[in-house]
């Protein structure tokens, strides 16, 4: 009985330790404001990268619209709290819902397209969102929205990241996820096995969009100021690099990619003019030397904990019986 749950307990313990270390670092004043910001950004990037990976890596649809979905979430969330004065949890729900609806609207017609064409269509969507937001006075036009309540803290970021990853992991592990993989591998054959390919393409796209929306809400309620120009193609490109470097089709890879590149970018802040050059170089180097990404399609799963846990459990047991 205990043995069965041991890996899960160990995984929870690891998460709790991680959470506590950062929390102590923040409230104990051990981390500078700069690094706290970057840790929050890391969390937001993990959500962005893993959700883009669900679309691009697991379902094999090459989307470049992530910044657009994030913007939809960010501005919707900001309207809910700053303009309407409603509580933050409602902003999360509204932001995710709006991004998901945008996902359906963009996904239904464009997911019939393949490869390059889908990339172009979703890229266009992202730009449309940005330009439209710039021209709506209600959300501040080009100067964007200010005075968004700064309610995001470490527990909110941490819980959002864990829940997002759990959602994606469980989706991929279910028969729905298997259907998405089959679509990626060969959509014609998937169809012949009874997979409704349009449904699964749109479903993965919508889940990815909703999570990008969540990242947007968190982003808006951390910085308190958002401008349409922040959600440009460069942001999508950043996230794409995280996914590619980590490994297209590996959830763990997305986490590693997001952590690695956010850290790199934090160090490169001193030389901002070289940052994108180094980013591009990194993409080229990783494409040449490790095209499958750092982790390929490998995952750190409960089974990893099982292996470590099994060893630990045996050791503990031995002590007890002695």
């Amino acid at each position, binding site marked *: 009985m205990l043995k069965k749950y041991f890996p899960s307990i160990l995984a929870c313990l690891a998460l709790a330790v991680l959470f506590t270390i950062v929390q102590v670092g923040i409230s104990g004043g051990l981390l500078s404001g700069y690094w706290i910001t970057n840790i929050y950004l890391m969390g937001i990037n993990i959500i962005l990268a893993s959700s883009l990976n669900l679309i691009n890596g697991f379902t094999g649809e090459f989307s470049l619209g992530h910044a657009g979905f994030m913007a939809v979430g960010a501005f919707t969330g900001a309207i809910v709290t700053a303009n309407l004065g409603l509580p933050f949890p409602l902003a999360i729900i509204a932001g995710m819902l709006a991004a998901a609806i945008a996902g359906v609207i963009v996904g239904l017609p464009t997911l019939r397209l393949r490869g390059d064409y889908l990339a172009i269509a979703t890229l266009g969507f992202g730009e449309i969102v940005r330009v439209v937001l710039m021209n709506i006075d209600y959300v501040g036009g080009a100067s964007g929205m200010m005075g968004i309540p700064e309610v995001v803290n470490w527990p909110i970021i941490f819980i959002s990241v864990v829940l997002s990853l759990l959602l994606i992991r469980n989706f991929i592990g279910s*028969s729905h996820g*298997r*259907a998405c*993989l*089959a679509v990626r*591998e*060969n959509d*014609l*054959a*998937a*169809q*012949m*096995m*009874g*997979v*409704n*390919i349009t449904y699964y393409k749109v479903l993965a796209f919508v889940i990815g969009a909703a999570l990008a929306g969540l990242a947007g809400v968190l982003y808006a309620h951390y910085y308190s100021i958002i401008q349409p120009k922040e959600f440009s193609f460069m942001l999508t490109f950043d996230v794409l690099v995280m996914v590619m470097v980590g490994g297209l089709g590996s959830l763990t890879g997305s986490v590693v990619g997001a952590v690695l590149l956010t850290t790199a970018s934090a160090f490169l802040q001193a030389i901002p003019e070289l940052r994108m050059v180094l980013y591009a170089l990194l993409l080229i180097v990783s494409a040449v030397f490790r095209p499958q990404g750092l982790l390929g*399609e490998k995952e750190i799963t409960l089974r990893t904990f099982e292996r470590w846990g099994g060893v630990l459990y045996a050791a503990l047991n031995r002590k007890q019986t002695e």
Partner: protein
Amino acid sequence: MGGIEQILTLDDVHVHYGAIWALKGINLTVGEGEIVSLIGANGAGKSTTLQAISGVVKSSAGKTTFRGEDITKVPAHNIVKKGIAQVPEGRRVFANLSVLENLEMGAYIRRDNKGIKQDMEMVLERFPRLKERISQVAGTLSGGEQQMLAIGRALMTRPKLMLLDEPSMGLAPLLVKEIFSIIQEINQEGTTILLVEQNARMALQISDRAYVLETGRIVLDGPAKELARQEDVKKAYLGG
């Protein structure tokens, strides 16, 4: 065809690809338990006929009936639930998934775990080479093994009718023989077969009946053995 019950009927089926008129009114029947083959040159419409049946391409006119039910408008992903499995041209295995995962995908529409397990054993028994490579990634299999996997995957749907599109394509003669004897075995165990083949000689050898297609029309049909003896068929499709 007295005695045999018709399982599949195509009634004046037309298919257009944009401006191209690919099928110009196909009429054909497949009886329960038969092996029926479609032969003809490249571009005659053989594959299109199979794809029209499985719903992958939409027919612009005509009617397809399967076991008494009109399936003309049924979308492709629901056709397999009716009991029609297609082994596509070029195998189309899920290259980055393992052999086991490919076979499990075949059982995607099924929820009867016990039956799935039985069929899995049955498939692995029939294809011992797949059993040896069960956790290997499908893309690393040889062409023949991939064809076996594609057939095994289709068997996992537990079909009443199996559509096979060019199963001999790109395979060595010995393997072609093996694949064809497997098709016969599957048929003897109760699955009806509709076969599309370039290798007309092999196809006619194992078939009960055959249809000859030319530019979207059926130009000849009859018992396979009779067709194989006809001079014009010999000349056009059997190399003299």
